[in-house]
């Protein structure tokens, strides 16, 4: 803490800029930041839940032997992985209303439409990445494991349930956690359509108080804390569980 404070003093001397943390860290501006963190976590959690379901469904489609399903899931993942999230957000927010029927629109406009559009964009985008991770995880288990389990007399479903999936799951978990982390970072893009999450609040405080430095420092630190906690837990997981995976 003392080191941080002296760093800021050096900064002030060099930049000829006086920090005013009290302004940002008290009263209504503090409330704004807290509610921004809340919205960030909320939109990430909702999108992650939807993305997990959708991503698993897409990955399963890709692994079937039905041609139309394979084409659909392949074009889904390729399209959403190869276009910018920001444009996808704009597409869902500004453009999708001409695709939806009237009653669905009425219902959506009664809800928080910005939040819904953000959730749709984030979950579809993340689902495309999650589907690829799941597929890669299952494919990384050598084929002869399945053959060996079938030769031991397990059915296909049993072999999947007891041999392949428990191993694949261990491989999938770390990239899945980093996808969740990317989701938290990507949720910052929802500020462009007016979802009041952390980055939006920082921008808002900047334009109300001209204390952009303080507001952005605090929100950067909050994002950083979330990321560091998650990446430490991935490292821990890798050390603890990944040795048990057989190749």
């Amino acid at each position: 803490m003392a080191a941080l404070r002296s760093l800021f003093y050096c900064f002030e001397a060099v930049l000829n800029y006086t920090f005013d943390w009290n302004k940002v860290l008290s009263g209504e501006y503090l409330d704004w930041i807290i509610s921004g963190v809340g919205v960030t976590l909320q939109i990430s959690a909702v999108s992650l839940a939807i993305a997990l379901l959708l991503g698993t469904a897409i990955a399963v489609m890709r692994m079937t032997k039905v041609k139309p399903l394979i084409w659909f899931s392949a074009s889904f993942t390729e399209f959403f992985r190869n276009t910018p999230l920001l444009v996808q957000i704009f597409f869902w927010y500004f453009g999708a209303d001409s695709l939806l029927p009237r009653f669905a629109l009425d219902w959506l406009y009664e809800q928080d439409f910005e939040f819904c559009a953000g959730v749709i964009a984030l979950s579809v985008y993340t689902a495309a990445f999650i589907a690829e991770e799941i597929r890669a995880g299952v494919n990384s288990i050598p084929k002869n494991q399945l053959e060996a389990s079938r030769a031991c007399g397990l059915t296909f479903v049993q072999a999947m349930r007891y041999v392949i999936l428990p191993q694949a799951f261990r491989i999938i978990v770390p990239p899945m956690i980093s996808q969740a982390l990317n989701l938290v970072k990507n949720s910052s893009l929802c500020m462009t359509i007016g979802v009041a999450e952390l980055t939006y609040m920082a921008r808002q405080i900047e334009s109300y108080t001209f204390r952009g430095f303080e507001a952005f420092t605090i929100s950067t630190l909050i994002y950083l804390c979330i990321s560091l906690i998650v990446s430490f837990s991935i490292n821990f997981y890798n050390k603890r569980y990944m040795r048990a995976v057989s190749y």
Partner: protein
Amino acid sequence: MQWDIVIDNFPYLLWGAYPEGPLGGLALSILLSIGGIFGAFWIGLAAGLMRLSKRWYIKYPSVVYIEIIRGVPLLMLIFWFYFLAPILLGKTLPEAESALVAFIVFTGAYIGEIVRAGVIALPKGQMEASRASGLTHLQAMRYVILPQALRNMIPSFVNQFVSLTKDTSLAYVIGVVELTRAAVQINNRTLSAPMEIYLTILVMYFVICYVLTALSRKLEKKMARYQARG
């Protein structure tokens, strides 16, 4: 469906107001991503090699740089450079330049990780053999390790280039008229065909990124044949 709006404004999407005004649209997006990847390559190379060093005063600055940048959304970085530049330089930097700096710093951290992984992935024997033949550590890096490691990294660089191309759309928030902002401007002017306009630029981004992704997959397959093995 009003595709004629898209057709009328297609040149603006491609290069902005170029002959009369500043360059914009897709051309600016591509310029930003190419400039970004070139700058980021050198920063990433330095950061990746520094992170492999055994000396703490070389290693830790790069660890801190990489971990901080990777933990923060790019949008945040773009705002940082946009607001920081006037204070640091004493004058305002044009939006495109300040976005470019943010892209370079951001992508540099990711390339640093690619470089580190690429060097670690080479068999240890390569370094040991070159040291045993009398090269210094630096010479071994320069003439033996990096030529092989960098070639193996090319597919990852292409992937990074693809995600940078997608990320250039974020320059929109500080007012750079690249493809996304050009589309938003057209949409604000016409107000009647948002679906068509955004679908068009989605397809434009998709074509570029998909071609590059396919290229990197092909390269990856080709590379796998030439790798030195331990």
